Each structure stands twice: as C-alpha cells, then as structure tokens.
C-alpha cells in the first residue's frame, strides 16, 4: 500500500519525443493530493500527451512518473490496469460508448470490474447521474445528448468506480457559457466533496483561474511558470503574459516558421 504522501503524482525529469520533435524536455511537475491542479499551455505543447504518459498509454524516453507510489513505466499490463482503476478520466469529447445508453455507459466499469447485483448497480449509477444533474437522461442514447451533457455523463462514468484522481482533458472546449459554468462548478464540487485530486488540462485561462488551486504553464517542453492563478497573472515573463492575456504575437510567434516572404512569393525558396 502506498503511503499518504503529499503529492499524488510526481513527474521527474521527464523527456519524451515523437519523431524528430522533442515534446517534453526534462519536465518536473507535482500534483498535490486533494487539490485541483491545472495544466495550461498553448495548443500543440503536448498537454494530452502528458495525460497519456501519466496514465501509461505512452512510455517516456527518460524520467519517472510516480502515481500514488507506483512508477508507471515499471508496471506491467496487470499493474497498469490496477493503477488505472484509481484514476477516472474525462476525454475531450466524452468518448461515450455510442452503442450503449447513458445508463449502460455509466454502469460499464461496474459491470466489467465487479459482480454487483443489478439493483445495486442501478442505485450507484443513479446516484452518480444525480450528482451531475442528469438522472433524468438515464435512458437516452449518447447521440441524443448535447456536448455539455455528454461530458457530464462521461464525468459520472469517470466517478463511478470512486477514483482517487480525476483527470479532465480539455473539459471546456466547445461548450456554451452555461454548460461551461456547470462543468467548472462540477470540477470544484467533485474535488471537494469526494476528497479526490483533480488534474485539469486546458487553455481556457478565465475558467481555469476560477477553479484551480495550482497551475502549471507548459511551453517548449518545460514548465515556464507555476503557482496560484494570481501568481501566474503577476508573472513578469513575456511568454506568460502573452498566454494569460491572450496576445496574438509575442514569444510564441504569430507566424509558423516560413521562408522569406518575398522569396516564397517569387517561387524561389530553397529546395
């Protein structure tokens, strides 16, 4: 049994590259127990990749990732699956199983991992759906749900095994302000009521500031700033300023690297 350390996830000296591109370059991150931690960064900085590394879907080139006392890269398949039962994950689009109703989607992990009687499963599923406010949608199919509802069902499903860690991958993308407010509130509430640790990957600075206890800003494979939302917006670094205030140009250039403009128009760029 892992002892109760202060950090539920510790990432040390993490390096990862895909092809020629170095995505993480000696990255260090701590996720504190019982807190909501935000991981922010411009698009393409590998935030989703980081989640896949944490959950063992990808293997790092170097460095260690300790989740609740276990080194993820040293776990075999069985160990990995045991570790994942402690983690609930919410995918960007919900990733509900399209063949099954809302009820069966939420019941899915229970049916796969337990031999609970149907009545008890029904009870648990309804409780979780009630927590996300969708008890009335229990018989709908995923295709009948709006984007925000699908994400709430996915949240109910992620919670159904009572995980210790909840991971949200871009939970606010493409939602209207009301749905977004609902999700923001749910993230906070679930974290506090259930006493779990949450990781939210996002680039919605405004929303994330209202919910996160600690934020990490990642760019160029490194942590460029970390701390509470207030600390981050007070950060003097140009890059942090650009990101937090949404400026079009800055250290992250507006232009994708390109040959000289005139040369390219004349069709004479190097071959």
């Amino acid at each position: 049994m892992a002892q109760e350390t202060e950090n539920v996830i510790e990432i040390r000296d993490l390096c990862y590259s895909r092809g020629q591109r170095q995505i993480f370059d000696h990255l260090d991150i701590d996720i504190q127990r019982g807190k909501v931690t935000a991981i922010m960064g411009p698009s393409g900085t590998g935030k989703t990749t980081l989640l896949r590394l944490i959950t063992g879907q990808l293997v790092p080139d170097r460095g260690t990732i300790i989740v609740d006392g276990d080194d993820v890269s040293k776990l075999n398949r069985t160990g990995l699956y045991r570790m994942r039962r402690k983690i609930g994950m919410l995918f960007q689009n919900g990733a509900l199983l399209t063949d099954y109703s809302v009820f069966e989607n939420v019941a899915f992990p229970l049916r796969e991992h337990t031999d609970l009687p149907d009545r008890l499963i029904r009870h648990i599923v309804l409780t979780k759906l009630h927590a996300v406010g969708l008890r009335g949608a229990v018989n709908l199919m995923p295709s009948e749900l709006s984007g925000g509802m699908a994400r709430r069902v996915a949240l109910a499903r992620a919670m159904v095994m009572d995980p210790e860690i909840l991971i949200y991958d871009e939970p606010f993308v493409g939602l209207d302000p009301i749905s977004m407010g609902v999700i923001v509130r749910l993230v906070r509430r679930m974290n506090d009521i259930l006493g779990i640790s949450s990781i939210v990957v996002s680039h919605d600075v405004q929303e994330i500031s209202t919910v996160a206890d600690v934020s990490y800003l990642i760019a160029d494979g490194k942590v460029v700033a970390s701390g509470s939302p207030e600390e981050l917006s007070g950060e003097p670094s140009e890059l942090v300023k650009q990101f937090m205030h949404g400026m079009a140009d800055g250290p992250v250039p507006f232009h994708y690297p390109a040959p000289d403009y005139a040369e390219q128009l004349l069709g004479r760029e190097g071959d």
Partner: protein
Amino acid sequence: MLRELAYFVGGFLQTFGQLHLFFLRLLVGVPRTLWRRFRLVVDQVHNAGALSMPIIVTSAFFVGGVLALQGYDNLSRFGSEDALGVLVALSLITELGPVVTALLFSGRAGTALASEIGLMRATDQLSAMEMMAVDPVRRVVMPRFLGGVIAMPLLAGIFSAIGIFGAYMVGVVLMGVDYGAFWSQMQESVEISDVLQGVLKSVVFGIAASLLAVFEGYNAIPTAEGVGRATTRTVVISSIAVLVLDFMITAAMM
C-alpha cells in the same frame, strides 16, 4: 527502385507479422471470452450472421439458378441432364458456397466490423476503455472476431442449401429435368468428404475474413480517411486471401 521494393516488402512482412501476433493474442483469449462474455459473442453472431441473411439468401438462390441454367445447357449436349443435381450440389458445397459466402461476408459483415472498430478508435472509445482498465481487445475485438468465425460456416451451409433449392426450381420446375434423377443422383454422388471439404473451407475463410476485418479496424488511422481506407482494405485483402486460401485448400485435398 530496388530500395523502394525492399521497403515495400519490409512493410508487408511487418504487417504480416503483426497480423499473426494479433491472431495469437486473440486465440489465447478464446476460452475466456466464450466463458465470461458469452452474451457478447451471441450478439455478434447475430450482427455478423443473422443480419447477413438477406444478401446470402438472395445471392444463393440466383447463383443456384444460374448454375442450373449453365449446367443444363452444357449437359444436354451430351444428353446427361440427369446429372444436373450432382453438378450443382458438388459445385455449391465444395466451391461456390464457401467462396461466395466469404466474399459476400467480407463485403457485408467485414466492412461493418472494420468501420465500427475504426470509428471507436477515432472517437477515443477504445482509449476510454483502456482508461477504465478494460482491455479493448478482449471487450470489443474478441466477441466480434468470434461472432464472425461462428457465423461464417453457418452462412455457407445456408448458402449451399438455398443454392441447391434455386437450382431445383430452375432445373426441375422450369427446364423439366427429372425430379427423381435430380435428387437421387445427388444423394448417391455427394460424399461426406465433399461436405467436410466445404465445412473446412468455410471455417478457414471465416477465420481469415473476420481476423482481417478486426485487424484493419483496430489498426485504422483514427481519422475519417483512415477508417474509410481500413474498410476498403478489409474487402480487398479478405477477397484476395479467400481466393488464395481456396486454391491452397483445394490443391491440398486433391
């Protein structure tokens, strides 16, 4: 040129090896799946089998009818129309039944399997299962594979039966071949070994077509284009595989 060829062959061998590893992984899980997830397998037999019935039955009837027409035309030149029953039964049971069923099966059920699994990957459903500590190969791929393997011989049997019925309708009812000769010659000349050959073929084709479909779907590139390509490849590769395997089995059993 030579280098491209080397790459091509290398890539082919790599995929071929992956396919076999995948097959082994599936084989290892067969007993467990039949024991623990029997319900899912039954559902998939329904999906791959029962839902393919319309196309199988219609095609079989007309294939049988055409065989009877062609056979009657040729046999009557030698005055041996009475042998029509044998001709039709043997061609259907040993050859056309398994082969045409497998081709139709890969077009109807194989593509459905490949695109379904491919789309599940594209929409993160497979990743979500992995995150819920559920192995998608066991939960999604295995039941579909087994469903196809079980359904295929049954469909081939139905194909042959309906084909013979179609030939009877055309040969006996329409063209006037003798009723007694049609059936009794068939009964005398068709050996159990012929039937077994047909069954063996349909089992092998069922394994090949189902395996290729789930393999292509599971390894599809998770985009709309990738899923489309996986579906196409399923039909093309399964059809070639079925025809090549058919030749090999027939030659081996001569």
